[in-house]
């Protein structure tokens, strides 16, 4: 990261220090337009869920949503964004985009979505320094600008897959032309961090991304690979892994007497295996858009793998729309499934109490406790150790169970109506089928939530750009 910044600073210094050798040369065209352009976009939406015992959310950053907390909800599909573009010279430009939408803490505090400087070395080669959207999905960077998309929202099944959505760093892009086709290669390095509901904090370091975009007439094909070192900290996860480490330290003194039962090593292994501390998290995917005239057909497949408690997941979707004058009906299918283990045997507890009791008794007698009292105390101590082990195992399996908790299939139908050149109205219906007893992508799940039952979401939205 720091070396990437240093590299970028050197490039910037060279570019600024030596004028613009080799940069996109063009004779200025005086159209009396300002160097700055202020633009904005937004969506006003109402979202209703048929499930009253859980909240439907459209991003894992939202604290609450439609269904349990409120119904309909005005805030999970709504947002407003402002963007300032500055074109300093023919080869140097900058952008800042600020968005306001529901946050992890339930507020609408504005967030800096984009903030970067772009050096356009040639018409087909540029380098950006600063914050950009992390393009894990084909529409990752435009997912918030409702007006630019056919759908009301990107398929939740798929677009919830990546826990971090921005990259602070450097990225370079080069476009090759092959007749009427073009191939754009993008590479990026950087990192990012973000607060999530429930008191956890996600941080990615050493992020590397490669993206290939092939365009030919009405066809766009994309493939990408992202890898990051992910850390997830905060009370809910720290308690568990610190608990395993404390357990290991606690049982270490009696371990030699236990023979082949290796408690402390197992406890440390579990913490090491599942704790998200600089663990490699990767995702790769392919996508296709076919947009001949009035048709728009789009599909994507993305898989994420992680060397921590975070799930390995695969998500895909297909969506098709057909434009009839100002109206575009559309339909889609999407799914997310979990590919990794959702449980672990944890610490061995079978017969543990019976093994520990005589060891503790002997220790207590050696310390001068009367034999009868020592036996009773030792039994209680052994039960305590087993109880701790079971609590830790329970916590771990609850955490791993969350891996499966996003499994769902959905189908969607909707309609987009272009009411004016910069305004559209949308109505969308989603039929969500949670899988494998999971919470699906829902949050704030209440005791009355019925597993594996279809949930219907209806939303109406007005999108605009200005």
């Amino acid at each position, binding site marked *: 990261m720091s070396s990437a910044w240093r590299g970028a600073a050197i490039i910037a210094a060279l570019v600024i220090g030596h004028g613009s050798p080799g940069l996109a*040369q063009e004779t200025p065209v005086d159209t009396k337009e300002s160097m700055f352009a202020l*633009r904005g976009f937004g969506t006003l939406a109402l979202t209703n869920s048929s499930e009253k015992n859980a909240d439907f959310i459209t991003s894992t950053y939202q604290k609450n949503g439609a269904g349990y907390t409120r119904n309909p909800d005005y805030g999970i599909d709504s947002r407003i964004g402002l963007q300032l573009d500055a074109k300093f010279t023919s080869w140097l430009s900058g952008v800042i*985009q600020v968005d306001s939408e529901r946050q992890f803490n339930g507020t609408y505090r504005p967030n800096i979505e984009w903030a970067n400087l772009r050096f356009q070395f040639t018409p087909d080669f540029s380098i950006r320094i600063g914050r950009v959207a992390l393009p894990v999905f084909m529409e990752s960077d435009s997912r918030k600008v409702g*007006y*630019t998309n056919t759908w009301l929202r990107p398929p939740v099944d798929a677009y919830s897959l990546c826990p971090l959505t921005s990259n602070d760093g450097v990225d370079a892009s080069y476009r090759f032309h092959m007749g009427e086709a073009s191939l754009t290669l993008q590479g990026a390095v950087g990192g990012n961090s973000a607060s999530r509901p429930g008191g956890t904090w996600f941080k990615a370091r050493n992020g590397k991304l490669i993206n290939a975009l092939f*365009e030919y007439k009405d066809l766009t094909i994309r493939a990408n690979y992202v890898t990051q070192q992910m850390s997830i900290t905060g009370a809910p996860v720290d308690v568990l892994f610190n608990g395993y480490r404390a357990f290991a330290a606690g049982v270490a003194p009696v371990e030699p007497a236990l023979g082949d039962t290796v408690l402390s090593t197992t406890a440390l292994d579990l913490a090491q295996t599942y704790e998200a501390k600089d663990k490699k998290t990767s995702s790769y995917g392919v996508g296709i858009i076919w947009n001949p005239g009035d048709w728009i057909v789009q599909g994507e497949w993305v898989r994420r793998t992680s060397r921590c408690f975070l799930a390995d997941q695969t998500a895909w979707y297909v969506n098709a729309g057909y434009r009839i004058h100002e109206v575009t009906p559309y339909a889609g299918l999407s799914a997310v499934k979990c590919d990794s283990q959702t449980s672990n045997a944890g610490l061995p507890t079978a017969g543990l109490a019976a093994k520990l009791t005589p060891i503790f008794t002997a220790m207590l007698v050696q310390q001068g406790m009367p034999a009868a009292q020592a036996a009773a105390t030792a039994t209680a101590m052994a039960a305590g150790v087993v109880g701790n082990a079971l609590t830790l195992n329970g916590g771990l399996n609850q955490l791993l169970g969350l891996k499966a908790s996003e499994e769902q299939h959905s189908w969607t139908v909707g309609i987009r109506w272009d009411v004016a*050149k910069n305004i559209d109205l949308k109505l969308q219906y989603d039929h969500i089928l949670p899988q494998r007893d999971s919470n699906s992508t829902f949050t704030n799940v209440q005791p009355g939530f019925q597993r594996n039952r279809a949930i219907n979401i209806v939303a109406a939205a007005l999108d605009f750009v200005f």
Partner: protein
Amino acid sequence: MATFKNYLHGLFVLGALCALPAFCADVVVVVSAKSPVSTLTADQVSQLFLGKLANFPGGGVAIPIDQAESSAIRDEFYTKVTSKTAAQIKAYWSKLIFTGKGQPPKEVKSSADVKRLVSANPNVIGYIDRAAVDATVKIVWSH
């Protein structure tokens, strides 16, 4: 007979529409008379105006210039060259703008303004009404 009447009716409607310049402006794509570019295909013009191509075929940076957003000639140009409606073009550029991928062509008010910029700079490409064409510019695409 009925077919013939429909045909006549069609001609009449077409004639009536053409009487309104808004419906029948004959849009042509022009570059400076000094530009080495002689002719472009609709696809090349489309790629230049949609920011997919930065250079003229054969070299030279291309600087496309748009007419006013609500003008009839602009709607006609995009419909003919890209087969996309004004709303689709608006959505296309919105996507590029709000993802930091590009900026739409600069905008001027009239065919006369386009002509002024085109004739002054061989890199500029614009579209104007055929009636506005004179010796300072050269037609590189027409319908």
